[in-house]
């Protein structure tokens, strides 16, 4: 049977597949090599090879083996290396000489993805290969329609969402399973400018189409564009923009203690004892601002110290052995914490002020009003800019813990939801980064492990994957891997992902913006995809950096001019000062 006939007989091709090469003499279950006709395929292309497989019943069946071109090596045996030296040194164009240009041999290495028995049926399941492809067989370039059929087979029941096109073939659309995305967690990694936000916007937009509740933790305001634009694009949706209110659940004073311990001064054993005494003796009501609570702690600590100095035991039961100076130290530390939290709150506020047209709301109490944060057709963005990592971690931990509890205890309060956590390395730092005291680590670990059962999905976004907690990462079932240049980040990817090989790792530094590998349970096979850019969801206020023009248009303020003037005058005075000792 001729090469064309085998695949032709097995399939109802939407359009003919082009013969692009012949398989070389040695193949394995994982890969094969083939001789490529000139310019008929490129790296990253998905190709099909005809082959035969033994079945369990002792039969041999014709199959199509699908694979991805991982490497192409071209050689021209008729172009001596010495000749290129002469061309270079003499600046000669090869076209002018008698050196041959048409004798390039290209050998491709193909990594097998699996096989299909039939393209004609409704279901085209990609099955792992268990027998090497036949040497000498033809390699074909499948039509876009058939390739699309393969990539998106079996997606119908999984709520497919469109994410972009194959990098190697722009005419092949790629869909991923929304079901698997929202339930089985996704890790999105890539260096700055690699296209993480492009992916997040794409995923969020598609989930909005499906009215799925989304909660985004946004430390930099990357997602404010969704608020600006999505209201017009999704008029039926609620797009909520929250700023945090640092508070804690009534019985969770441990969180408060950690925050004070980490943000305040280093305390001694008796000082910690007194801090504990304060926390035990002063009631904390759920929903109370933590800053207000700390202010109360300071007042109480000050009055205790005053009483101690006056040798009064009033209100000091349990702390009578504590000295006034110890109490003073605790007060100072608490004041430092209060100051820091207040500064962060103000910083957050001043950042919010940069967007006067956006309406920021205080985050509702997740214990008593979770439905205001998570609801069908609602996107909630928590704007964390201005907050340092520890308070941010606390805020994330408290909020997620509460929402997760609502889902795990009773499924009627809030619907299943999907969480996007930007700058994930700040919330789930690896052990080597020092994760002690980061309350978000244990919360996110819990969600990563049990979230699927309760409809709480995670999408962790990070530019420094090697700084992420490995346990959490290993619970991620799908990956979006964008451009990564840092070797440690690349090694992390190799360690974390199954079936990852060096050839794939080599691609990572070369991806363009929005290009990356989509892998795991959201897709049938790992794909190199150009993610669709949703420019109608970008934030107009945070564009690309334009510092050169900023400086060009820079005008000194009245204050800075006056400051310079005064400074100059004072300089003169200082110079004429003869009373100053040398």
């Amino acid at each position, binding site marked *: 049977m001729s090469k064309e006939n085998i695949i032709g007989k097995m399939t109802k091709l939407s359009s003919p597949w082009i013969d692009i090469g012949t398989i070389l003499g040695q193949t394995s279950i994982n890969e094969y090599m083939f001789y490529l006709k000139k310019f008929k395929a490129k790296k990253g292309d998905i190709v099909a090879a005809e082959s035969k497989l033994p079945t369990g019943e002792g039969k041999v069946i014709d199959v199509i083996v699908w694979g991805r071109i991982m490497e192409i090596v071209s050689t021209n045996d008729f172009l001596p290396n010495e000749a290129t030296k002469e061309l270079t040194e003499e*600046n000669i164009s090869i076209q002018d000489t008698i050196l041959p240009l048409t004798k390039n041999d290209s050998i491709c290495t193909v990594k097998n993805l699996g096989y299909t028995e039939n393209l004609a049926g409704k279901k085209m399941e990609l099955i792992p290969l268990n027998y090497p492809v036949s040497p000498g067989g033809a390699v074909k370039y499948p039509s876009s329609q058939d390739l699309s059929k393969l990539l998106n087979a079996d997606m119908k029941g999984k709520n497919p969402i469109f994410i972009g096109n194959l990098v190697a073939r722009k005419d092949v659309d790629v869909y991923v399973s929304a079901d698997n995305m929202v339930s089985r967690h996704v890790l999105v990694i890539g260096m700055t400018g690699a296209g993480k936000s492009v992916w997040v916007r794409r995923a969020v937009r598609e989930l909005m189409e499906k009215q799925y509740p989304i909660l985004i933790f946004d430390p930099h305001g990357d997602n404010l564009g969704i608020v600006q634009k999505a209201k017009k694009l999704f008029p039926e949706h609620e797009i909520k923009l929250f700023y945090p209110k640092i508070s804690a659940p009534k019985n969770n004073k441990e969180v408060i203690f950690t925050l004070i311990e980490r943000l305040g001064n280093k305390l001694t054993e008796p000082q910690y004892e007194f801090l504990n005494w304060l926390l035990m003796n002063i009631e904390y009501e759920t929903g109370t601002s933590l800053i207000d609570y700390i202010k109360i702690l300071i007042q109480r600590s000050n009055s205790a110290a005053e009483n101690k100095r006056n040798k009064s035991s009033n209100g000091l039961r349990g702390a009578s052995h504590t000295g006034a100076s110890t109490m003073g130290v605790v007060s100072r530390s608490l004041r430092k914490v209060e100051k820091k939290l207040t500064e962060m709150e103000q910083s957050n506020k001043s950042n919010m002020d940069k967007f006067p047209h956006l309406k920021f709301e205080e985050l509702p109490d997740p214990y008593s009003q979770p439905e205001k944060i998570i609801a069908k057709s609602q996107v909630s963005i928590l704007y964390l800019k201005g907050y340092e990592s520890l308070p941010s971690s606390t805020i994330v931990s408290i909020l997620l813990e509460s929402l997760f509890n609502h889902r795990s205890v009773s499924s009627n309060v809030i619907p299943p939801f999907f969480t996007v956590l930007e700058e994930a390395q700040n919330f789930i730092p690896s052990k080597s980064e020092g994760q002690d005291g980061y309350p978000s680590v244990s919360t996110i670990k819990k969600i990563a492990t049990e979230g699927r059962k309760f409809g709480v999905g995670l999408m962790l976004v990070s530019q420094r994957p090697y700084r992420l907690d490995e346990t959490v990462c290993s619970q991620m079932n799908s990956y979006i891997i964008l451009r990564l240049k840092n070797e440690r980040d690349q090694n992390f990817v190799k360690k974390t992902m199954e079936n990852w090989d060096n050839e794939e790792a080599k691609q990572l530094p070369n991806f363009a913006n929005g290009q990356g590998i989509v892998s795991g349970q959201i897709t049938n096979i790992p794909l190199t995809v150009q993610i669709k850019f949703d420019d109608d969801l970008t934030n107009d206020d945070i564009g690309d950096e334009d510092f050169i023009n900023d400086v060009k248009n820079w005008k000194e303020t009245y204050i800075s001019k006056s400051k310079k003037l005064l400074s100059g005058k004072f300089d003169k005075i200082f110079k004429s000062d003869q009373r100053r000792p040398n």
Partner: protein
Amino acid sequence: MSSINTNSSLFKEFIQNAVTSPSPKVQKNFMEVMGSIVQIFKKICEDEKLIIDLEYKGKDYWKKAKDFKSCFVDGGVYSNFLSSSAPFAIRAKSFIIKPNEFGKNREKFEDTVGYFGDLYDPNNNIYDLSEDPYEDNQLLTKKKDAARITFEMAAVVKHVFNKQNFKYCFLHGPLQTPIMPFSGPEFPLFKKNVVKTLVPFFKLNDENDLDRHFINIYLNSNKYIQKAKFPIYGIVERTGSTIYLRNILIRAVKKGVLAEHDYDKTVSLIKRYKINDGNLFELILKNSQALKPIEVEKQIPSKAWGDWQNAMDSFPKVFVGYVKTNKNQSPIRIESLNYPKKLIEDYEYILACSKLLPSYGFPVGLDIVDKAARIPSWLGRTAKGYYLKYYLKIALDGNDKNTITSALKSISHGGRSWQKRPKAGKVSK
């Protein structure tokens, strides 16, 4: 170490000699003789104005030469002489290129002539075994050589016959080979159809069988290509020939500047000291210098077998020159059947082609066609394996122990391997 121990005294002397004064007398003497010879030949060459300077300006040259359509020809042979069969494949390829063209029109690798058969098989042979009076297997190597020479020449003939519009045509190897070794009475004739295919211009006289003899075919081919409208050159690297230096001496004798007895002594000295054109002119010529071609006689009729002396006499004379293409290599030999009409221009083209292979210093077009024509060793090895297996299969099918043993001996690469073979197995001695 054990090898050194068994040769300890010799090893000691050898090392001592090498590190103190390695063969001081003979080496010094060689240098002196060589130095003197170089001086003499340099003076003769200068007096005769044989040395010319060639110009090569890489980029500018190729801008100009990109319009030239050139052809490079070389042959490749596969042979495997078993006692059971002598499979033989031969081809002559042409690399034709005109740089200024684009795509497929720019370059072509052409199987100009080719053949595959068995030198034992009368039906699938280039030689007419019915006319092979001795059927002597010892001639296999000569048959192979004659076929190779004929096929390479036939490729050039074909281009001339097809009236190609080449600027140049180059053959990898001499344009004319001494044919004395093939002049013996036992050398077979080519088959008629082979002659018709290889030399289509040639009108066979059916009544004269010797028309199909290699020497006759080669002679006529030489004469035919001599009349070509484009220059044809044969180019030889790593030459050990003494033809140029001997002919310079002959010219000197003819002019009376060298006595005949001095000629004889010089030739004898050159032989003893293994001086040849390559090592002598490497010392005389500078980079990008050439020796003008001189007319030489390649065939020596007196050495041929009787019937062929006249034929050898009628071979065209050959013009031989040398070009030193780089600092480090011996000059390459250039042969033509006519004195070049545009000597400098032609030699500069050869020089430019060689500059594209700067270390090897040989026209890159011939290097390219050499690679294209050569029958790869993997193909040869594989083919040999199949032939041997088939031979063994027939032997086993025949069930004759002696035949099987003979077949196994063939497979075991000769007598010594056979002696050392494992003795296990059921095949009796």
